[in-house]
């Protein structure tokens, strides 16, 4: 594949993994064992529809362990049945009827019913009119949404039964112990409708990102986060690394709409001034792909139509032609060391072009953001990014590539966002972990994962 850089990395990681003898596909999976996971931060709530951070990989992954959605997306982006087995679209995508799988139970033993599904979806989608019938739910939307099924596959639309302040799911695991912000213990649900997971339990602990590799080396964890800037070093050291497609967007987002033609030209000059290649090579240690679009090419197929090359001379010329040069402040997540490094470099690039940009804590004119693309459906990802970044919602006019191009082009033409990079999500794995699957959307699929017996 010459199109994408990430598969090469993924393949090289996989080869390292395989050469270490960590995988032997001819061996049947073994039931039992505990997977020990170190995560960067624990979500404040386990409820996927009430305040869980949909831009957090941790929240998304934990949700998938405990809860199911009505449908899922395959790795090629196709809709697959899950808690719903069939569906019908009416009125051009404004009314949807989904028939539920029979015999599914929540972890408290109660059956999955259309009433509970409707209630769960109402909590997550206040604008939808949702009704239940004998074996199905009917969703009426304020306006047609051809991408509704892909939206239903998002974690925030997980089906949750809420009773007396307790959450119950139909997922492959259920909670036995939860201390907010510290640890989470899960055990396999024996009669899970899609087949009981091989693992007996999962222990999830919050560990400082910088200490996670040590946890892996000491055998305290089987699965840890690898920061983007650490990924190359980890591969060079022969660690077992899993790399997702580049699905985290790093971008600059302006807090206000373009104020004037000159303001637009200044924003364009800033985009031209940023040397993405140098940032990638030095600060990201070769990780990620420079971005000119919100969606990476593996989702949109046309990113090359948008420039991501630095052109300092043109930036300087454009800035010199403008009468006023306002001073902008650039904000970033102070708990993210990588964001700080990138922000500092962007300030230098901007100054080289004659722009007045300085770092700021708190409110700022421009903010460096990192947004996870949550879906393999490009429309859902585009709409989610727009929502998180505060951009106008793109209009879903059709399913063709030109429709997507127009919508994304329109968003970028607002000059509210300057895409910088698409970064992968990396994880480190212990040799005992078998059948590891990180889906194309970055989500762990732990249902088939098992722990080799000699290391349990």
């Amino acid at each position, binding site marked *: 594949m010459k199109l994408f850089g990430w598969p090469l990395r993924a393949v090289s990681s996989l080869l390292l993994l395989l050469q270490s003898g960590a995988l032997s596909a*001819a061996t*049947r999976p073994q039931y039992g064992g505990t997977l020990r996971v170190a995560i960067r931060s624990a979500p404040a709530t386990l409820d996927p529809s009430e305040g869980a951070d949909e831009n957090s990989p941790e929240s998304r992954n934990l949700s998938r362990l405990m809860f199911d959605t009505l449908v899922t997306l395959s790795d090629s982006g196709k809709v697959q049945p899950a808690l719903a087995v069939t569906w019908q679209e009416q009125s051009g995508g404004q009314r949807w009827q989904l028939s539920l799988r029979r015999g599914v139970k929540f972890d408290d033993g109660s059956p999955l019913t259309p009433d509970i599904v409707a209630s769960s979806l109402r909590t997550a989608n206040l604008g939808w009119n949702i009704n239940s019938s004998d074996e199905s739910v009917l969703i009426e939307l304020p306006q047609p949404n051809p991408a509704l099924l892909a939206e239903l596959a998002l974690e925030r639309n997980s089906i949750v039964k809420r009773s007396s302040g307790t959450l119950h799911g139909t997922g492959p695991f259920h909670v036995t112990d939860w201390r907010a912000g510290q640890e989470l213990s899960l055990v396999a649900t024996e009669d899970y409708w899609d087949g*009981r997971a091989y693992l007996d339990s999962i222990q999830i602990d919050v560990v400082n990102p910088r200490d996670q590799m040590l946890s892996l080396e000491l055998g305290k964890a089987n699965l840890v986060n690898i920061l983007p800037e650490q990924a190359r070093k980890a591969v060079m050291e022969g660690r077992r690394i899993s790399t997702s497609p580049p699905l985290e967007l790093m971008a600059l987002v302006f807090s206000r709409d373009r104020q004037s033609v000159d303001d637009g030209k200044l924003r364009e000059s800033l985009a031209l001034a940023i040397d993405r290649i140098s940032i990638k090579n030095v600060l990201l240690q070769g990780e990620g792909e420079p971005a000119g679009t919100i969606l990476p090419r*593996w989702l949109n197929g046309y990113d090359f139509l948008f420039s991501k090359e630095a052109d300092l001379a043109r930036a300087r010329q454009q800035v010199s032609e403008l009468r006023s040069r306002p001073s902008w402040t650039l904000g970033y997540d102070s708990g993210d060391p990588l964001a700080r490094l990138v922000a500092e470099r962007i300030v230098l690039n901007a100054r080289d072009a004659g722009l007045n940009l300085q770092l700021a804590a708190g409110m700022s004119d421009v903010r460096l953001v990192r947004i996870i693309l949550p879906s393999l459906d490009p429309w859902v990802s585009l709409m989610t990014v727009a929502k998180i970044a505060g951009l106008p919602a793109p209009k879903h006019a059709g399913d063709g590539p030109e429709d997507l191009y127009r919508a994304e082009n329109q968003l970028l033409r607002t000059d509210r966002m300057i895409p910088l990079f698409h970064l992968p999500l990396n994880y480190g794995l212990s040799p005992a972990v078998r059948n590891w699957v990180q889906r194309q959307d970055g989500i762990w699929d732990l249902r088939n994962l098992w722990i080799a017996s000699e290391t349990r």
Partner: protein
Amino acid sequence: MWGTMSTNIASYNSRVPEMFTAWLSCWRRISCVACIAILAAAASAADWSEQERLLSQKIAATTGPAAVSLEVVNRSSLSKTDAASIQGSLRTQLAALGLRFVKPEQSSAVVDVSLSENLASYVLVAQIRQGQNEPAVVMVSVPRSEPLNTVYEPAVMLLRKIQLWSQDEPILDVGVVDTSPPHIVVLEPNRIVLYSLQAARWQQEQAFMIPHTRWWPRDLRGRVLIRKDHLFDAYLPGTTCSSTGSSPLAVSCRESDDPWPIGTEPVTLKGFFSPTRNFFTGIVVPGVGRSGTVATFYTAAPIPRDRYTLWLFAGVDGRVHEIDDANEQLLTTNWGSDIAGVRTSCSSGFQILATSNSDGVSSDTVRAYEFPNRDPIPVSQPLEFSGSITSLWPESGGASAVAVSHNPRTGKYEAFRLAITCGQ
């Protein structure tokens, strides 16, 4: 997702043998095998002509019948040959719509076509520049398809794989029925499907749902056995199905913890299979060895001796247990979890087929072994598969085995008959 399927004129991808490559053979005690050879490959390839025509129309609608410069860049995983073919076709289509191709400096429009791709499709993108105007962008997409590739290795004792069937749905096992016309019984997680060979193609004859009240366990396993007094029995965890003997068939399924037949005819045992897991519990009937029970295991295979039978059990503990009436020992092998015995006219007359993934890099393999004493001696080259082997069972009669593998490139499950040819 995007794109529309188009008609069958041009194809730029390798043809994909979809299914229906079948060699059916008798398996009676006679040494030679082959009966019927059927080869029918169905093709499935991305079809581009309609989308090329559509893109050409979109370009022409923007430029009109003008002098243009055309450049085509391949930014996808398409081969050079395919890219050149698309370029040639686009030129032809555009010329038919009145466009003339000139150098950029002589053109009224510059058309840059990129052959790109995303997760779901190939995307053909045309950027059209006319004077100082904003470039126009038009696109079309073609759903992706993936080629199939298998590897074949010659060997001393030749282990051959003959494709029986391939499908998207998981295959647990396939039974071959030596009738006229030949039939195959495909065991899926939720149904049993009977196909007959009609005009060199397998045609579905009947399908029977498998009712079950309990959710299937992960790594679901099952076995189908062709019978003499009725057509077949099928075994799944906690469920057994039996067919009638005459057409049209009827199949009855029931919840049952009855033991599954294991071994290779005529040397067989029955083993109890866990209804909620992917292994045998270790209770076998009649017993083996001194205790009568063995460690939990995935598969078992017998090696008949003059006065006793040596049994091999691929244990859940990852080791191969070698048990006879008096002794049990552990073998040091790189075998996987699936083994099967086959009875042939070659050498000792009994070989063990074992899965492996010894180098950990390539796909799974199956290799034939003999046991002159207590240690395995390889007697064939490893036979490679295009992915993980999900099932390996001896066929009814014991002269061959059926392996099922999952091809990660195509997503298909592929069932093969494995047969040994002597003295190569």
